[in-house]
């Protein structure tokens, strides 16, 4: 080989590797620190996250008090360190939060009702399991009656328990489930009425739906509590909880009507025409052909309505019915547990319960939506 200057004789040493563009480090560089603005945002968000997460975990877990019998155990002076959540407060009030003032020796009835509800609801939620119709009839038709007799009593040798002593999660679940189970048939009828060809029926349904959707739920509850007894004959006494349930069913029915209407509108005209061609009258067509398809479409909407209703049960606090939030507020007033951290502890506990249940339901709604492939995924 001739010794040309431009010819290399030695191997070039290995060059340092390029800055990572793939893998975790590359992802971090690209996503989080891609530009100056991005970097600033990342830093700010990170600081925000730390500022929120660290005190929360310290409050809930690290500094928390796990055992105690009264307020003295949750005070800084007694413990000598900063105090976090006062969990003994929750433990002491737990029965009230879950059952209200339901008599102690009758709690088995409430637990039995819960168990029955779970046993009947769980198979309904899993799409793969069969016998859905029987399951639905049992859950929506038989279970409410059984639950009513179990909880109220007065028959079959069960002692009568006034609804005034019900409270906490029991009331929350009773109102939510009764609201949904009652508003479903009512909403279906309203939706069908709104799409009806009879002008008077259509107009009445539209007025009804728009009226109930235009007023706040709290005015509906006041209407039910104060005005409903006036409209009935003077010697009928309606239980206060029953009044609230009626108000909730009316209100939820109007919203359910809109949800079902969306489903009805999604049915192609061919179904109506095919049913008419087979000689079905209006009710047979609706019951056998249209509604089964429409209801399947609106299951995500129904679950969303249930989530909204579940959160709205907190409003009954204002008409002096003690749901979970009402019991919480009453528990705050107990001087035996009055410490600076009681409020935050109670709110944390109730918040966790509400969040877990609502979040689980919304995930379920998303799951069914994706399965049915009809949801407005946008």
């Amino acid at each position, binding site marked *: 080989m001739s010794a040309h200057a431009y010819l290399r004789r030695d191997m070039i040493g290995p060059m340092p590797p390029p800055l990572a563009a793939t893998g975790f480090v590359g992802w971090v560089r690209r996503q989080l620190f891609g530009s100056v603005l991005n970097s600033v945002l990342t830093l700010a968000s990170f600081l925000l996250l730390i500022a929120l997460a660290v005190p929360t975990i310290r409050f809930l877990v690290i500094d928390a008090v796990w055992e105690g019998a009264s307020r003295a155990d949750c005070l800084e002076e007694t413990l000598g360190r900063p105090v976090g959540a006062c969990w003994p407060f929750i433990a002491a009030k737990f029965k009230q939060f879950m059952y209200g003032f339901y008599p102690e020796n009758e709690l088995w009835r409430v637990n039995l009702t819960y168990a029955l509800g779970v046993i009947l609801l769980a198979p309904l939620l899993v799409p793969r399991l069969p016998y859905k119709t029987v399951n639905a009839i049992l859950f929506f038709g038989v279970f*409410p009656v059984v639950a*009513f007799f179990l909880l109220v009593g007065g028959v079959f040798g069960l002692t009568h328990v006034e609804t005034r002593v019900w409270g906490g999660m029991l009331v929350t679940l009773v109102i939510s489930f009764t609201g949904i189970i009652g508003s479903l048939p009512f909403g279906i009828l309203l939706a069908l009425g709104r799409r009806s060809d009879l002008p008077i029926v259509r107009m009445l349904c539209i007025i009804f739906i728009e009226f109930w959707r235009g007023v706040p739920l709290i005015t509906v509850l006041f209407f039910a509590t104060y005005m409903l007894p006036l409209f009935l004959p003077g010697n009928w*006494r309606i*239980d206060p909880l029953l009044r609230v349930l009626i108000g909730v069913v009316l209100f939820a029915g109007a919203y359910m009507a809109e949800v079902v209407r969306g489903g009805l509108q999604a049915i192609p005209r061919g179904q109506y025409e095919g049913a008419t061609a087979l000689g079905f009258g209006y009710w047979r067509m609706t019951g056998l052909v249209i509604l089964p398809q429409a209801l399947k479409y609106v299951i995500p909407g129904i679950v969303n309505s249930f989530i909204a209703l579940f959160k709205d049960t907190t409003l009954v606090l204002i008409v002096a019915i003690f749901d979970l939030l009402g019991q919480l507020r009453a528990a705050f007033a107990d001087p035996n547990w009055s410490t600076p951290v009681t409020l935050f502890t109670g709110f944390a506990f109730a918040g966790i319960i509400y969040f877990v249940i609502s979040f689980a339901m919304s995930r379920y709604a998303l799951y069914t939506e994706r399965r049915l492939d009809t949801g407005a995924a946008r």
Partner: protein
Amino acid sequence: MKRATLTLGLAFGLGLVADAASAQTLKTVKDRGSLICGVGQGLPGFSSPDDKGAWTGLDVDLCRGIAAAIFNDPNKVKYTPLSAKDRFEPLKSGEIDVLARNTTWTLSRDALFNFTAVNYYDGQGFMVRKALKVNSALELNGASICTQTGTTTELNLGDYFRANNMRYEVIAFATADETVKAYESGRCDVLTTDVSQLYAEKLKLTNANDHVILPEIISKEPLGPLVRHGDDQWFDIVKWVHFAMLNAEELGVTSKNIDEALKSNLPEIRRLLGIEGNFGEQIGLTKDWVVRIVRHVGNYAEVFDRNVGTGSRLGISRGINRLWTKGGIQYAPPIR
């Protein structure tokens, strides 16, 4: 469908009351086997449940007196806790037989119901923190005041401050608990309600000794049990249970010496305890109605002491609630 079932079933379970305005409350109570008393939701000294659910208080003892007079058993009572806002409706509709919930006797309320007697003469007052160094209500110009809505308190407050040309900020809450909580957290400087309630609420504060009740009484609040219009016999019964307790105190009959008193020769005591005459039967009770009341519940002095007086946590002095013979205004008509 389901709603109809619910209504019917609930009605069946609860027992429909035929007609709320009938003159048959005594019969209804006897048939039912127990008295249904509307009480407060937890006011120490007047009506509050303890941890096991047993009710105690001045109003509770009146209900127990009525039950003792009718059934010879003071425990045949069911207590229905009611808030200030919703206390009248159950009485009107027949859900409860008597409302013993430290309710003020006013003209507008008398037009709708019957006030039977005054078992506690009260007035509206103010409670402030000692640290504010306030000695009189007239120094409260510009203060923030917490009160409970749905009561005569709001109106009295407005009248007093207007009459004395003082400014104030009022924050009204729906329940007594919220009001006390707001006062304790410092949202307002002053808590105002009936003085007896102030003493009771003071017990619920974390540091009761940091608070003081001002001396001014700015209104008349005669508290007593109410019954419905239209049932004179029941009205007489409730009224005379209270008068029986006052007469027993006047004559020195207590639950401790009731047995010796039964052997007494004094004509007044003999009439009181039913040994002579049939006064109890004239209002629908038994001859020994006062014996039942005093034996099971006590006379007015015992009831007062045990619940709100020096023998209780509240420690309120008898004041104008003393007997007329001792300088107070509790005065009962004679049993003859």
